């Protein structure tokens, strides 16, 4: 298991960075936000991402994907962190893809995976129900009545929920065990409300109110609870990779600013007070880089065996990105508080990435639980 990229992975990294910085700089996100774009992402760009192989990076080859691993998906997520381009990469190409791969029936897989890989369809995963991430407290449930299985419950922070062609819902089955159900968002009994988020990325609240499930709705090709765990861990590692990209980007911009901004007749980067803080941040970013690499590589070894490494990476990346964006605003001074400067967009997105699927508090606690204290 390696913590450095091999030759093919290095090529993927270079091409992902080049493609994203050329086609979707930060102004791309601004444009979507300021025009209050209804889709919240560019479908045209997403199709081009499909041509690059991004959309199906984790989809098996037999379904038209690249059949690559978490390391490769993480490389793309890290590149995304550099320009904050909003795409269904995390929701559809990682979370839903893994859920379908691990627990989908053959019919569900062949219906959805090829369309995910081609960028034609977006599939979302609905997990969280409360303000803070608590995957063990699942209140959405299926009950059986005369009409069949009926789904009830409320979800929030569902990434790309309002633009999804299908939604995979984590809910308790009639026995009370966690399971995954594939739902058509257009059916009666599904109410979707887009929530405009601080980071201008897609999210929705979804209410399932007496939704009658089709007999083939359940992901019964594998263990639903295990598949959910795999998807969540991969999602956490991807968010860690995105936050690493964010930290790298704002740090580079901040160091550049320290080297050009003058006050008191000298470059502010000459002040030791700022030099030491910048150097400390450098260390935090470098060590987080290693933790993220470990989590991604571990998941490729065993998608269900990376919990501790994933929590370490998510906790580190959350704390590091938080420090990086705060230092960036502080060191830019007043201009750092303006909407015109991009730094604020990175701060907002970092906050969302921190929160999604558990912040550093959640994951530090989790490491303690896993280590038995």
């Amino acid at each position, binding site marked *: 298991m390696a913590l450095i990229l091999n030759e093919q992975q290095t090529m993927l990294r270079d091409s992902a960075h080049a493609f994203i910085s050329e086609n979707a700089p930060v102004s791309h996100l601004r444009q979507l936000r300021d025009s209050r774009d209804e889709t919240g992402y560019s479908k045209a760009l997403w199709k081009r991402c499909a041509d690059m192989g991004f959309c199906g990076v984790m989809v098996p080859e037999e379904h038209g994907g690249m059949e690559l691993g978490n390391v490769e998906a993480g490389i793309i997520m890290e590149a995304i962190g550099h320009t904050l381009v909003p795409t269904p990469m995390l929701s559809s190409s990682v979370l839903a893809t893994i859920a379908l791969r691990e627990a989908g029936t053959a019919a569900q897989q062949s219906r959805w995976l090829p369309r995910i890989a081609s960028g034609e369809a977006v599939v979302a995963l609905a997990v969280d129900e409360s303000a803070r991430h608590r995957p063990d407290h699942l209140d959405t449930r299926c009950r059986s009545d005369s009409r069949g299985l009926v789904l009830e419950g409320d979800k929030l922070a569902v990434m790309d929920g309002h633009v999804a062609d299908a939604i995979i819902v984590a809910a308790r089955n009639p026995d009370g065990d966690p399971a995954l159900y594939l739902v058509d968002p257009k059916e009666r009994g599904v109410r979707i409300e887009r929530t405009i988020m601080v980071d201008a990325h897609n999210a929705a609240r979804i209410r399932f109110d007496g939704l009658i499930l089709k007999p083939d709705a359940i992901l019964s090709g594998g263990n639903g609870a295990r598949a959910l765990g795999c998807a969540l861990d991969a999602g956490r590692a991807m968010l860690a990779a995105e936050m690493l990209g964010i930290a790298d980007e704002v740090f580079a911009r901040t160091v550049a600013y*320290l080297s050009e901004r003058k006050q008191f007749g000298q470059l502010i980067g*000459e002040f030791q007070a700022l*030099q*030491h803080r910048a*150097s400390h941040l450098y260390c935090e970013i*470098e060590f987080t880089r290693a933790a993220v690499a470990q989590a991604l590589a571990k998941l490729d070894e065993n998608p269900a065996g990376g919990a501790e490494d994933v929590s*370490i990476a998510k906790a580190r990346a959350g704390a590091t990105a938080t420090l990086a964006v705060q230092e960036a605003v502080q060191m830019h001074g007043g201009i750092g508080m303006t909407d015109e400067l991009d730094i604020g967009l990175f701060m907002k997105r970092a906050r969302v990435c921190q929160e999604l699927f558990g912040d550093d508090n959640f994951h530090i606690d989790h490491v303690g*639980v896993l280590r038995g*204290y």
Partner: protein
Amino acid sequence: MNSLADFRRETRAWLEANCPPEMREPIADDSERCWGGRHWTFKSEAQRLWLERMAERGWTAPTWPREYGGGGLSAAEAGVLATEMRGLGCRSPLDSFGIWMLGPALLKYGTEEQKLEHLPKIVRGEIRWCQGYSEPNAGSDLASLATRAEDAGDHFVVTGQKIWTSYANFADWIFCLVRTDAGAKKHTGISFVLFDMESPGVSTRPITLISGKSPFCETFFDGVEVPKRNLVGELNRGWDVAKYLLTHERNMISSIGDRGAAPTLGVLASERVGLDAEGRLDDSVLRARIGQFEVDEAAFRLAIRRFGEQARAGIPVNPAYSSALKYYGSELNKRRNELLMSIGGAVALEWEGDASDDGARARDWLRSKANSIEGGTSEVQLNIISKRILGLPGA
């Protein structure tokens, strides 16, 4: 690739056959380490045998060339050896400033004669070295050192004082920075010389630290004669050698934060502090601090591993990266020791007596405070990162 697998198999078999069982038990305290030297008394026959067998293969210095007594291993093979030793719990056969610090500098800057004279003795643990760098008025500002070496024909005459010389009172030889050109700018008038600590005019005085231990000395030179053939590198260019060597020292100190099989803090704490009904440490704030520490420590260890992988893959890494490791590793070790004191509570404060093992934990805690001072303070490391990695102006 196959040959590396073969090497792993052979290495494991050899270690299993040759590492005495006593040398596979974790080291309980520093007195069990093997430092070697002219006056060394082995703590056990197993310790003697383990050093002899490893030195025989050159595996005390695995990557040094065979002609100087080293193991002649590639970086990848040395990595395999280290992994296999860790796997079997083998102790380090020899702790040595000669291996960690002087050797790499001699390999790069030494003459053939110097390499042949000194390196094999370092490998076999026959000569114990100390480092003469810091002076009372040259700490962080090391280049302002004042110990002078005057030209006396075929030898130098060295006069001055060093401080914080680790284990100078046990050392056989010293590698030492001396001023050979008082008129030059401070970095350019320094030379790097080697001499025997038994030379007339050398004396040492141990310094008692806040831990009650005396690992450091004041070292005095009063007209010590040093043959000119003991000059390493060019005259007045000793700063180059010193800087090169410091990066190795930093790697060594940063590895303090990298503890192999030591129990995690959380496990230690749950034994001492106890768990609540839900199986969590019965002090939620301490638990959170320990968790935070363990996450940071894990990232740090992974960064060291990644650093090693980059080196083996031939990926260039900024040499100043060692400053990042040194800075973070020493700060982590201080945090670890503060947490250990919290876990130990009042018992850990008993300076003498059996319950605290004569204040072992408190002494380690106090000792750890030097981690961010020795080998360049944390502030100096941050200066180096600012200048050499970030390229900030005026750094």
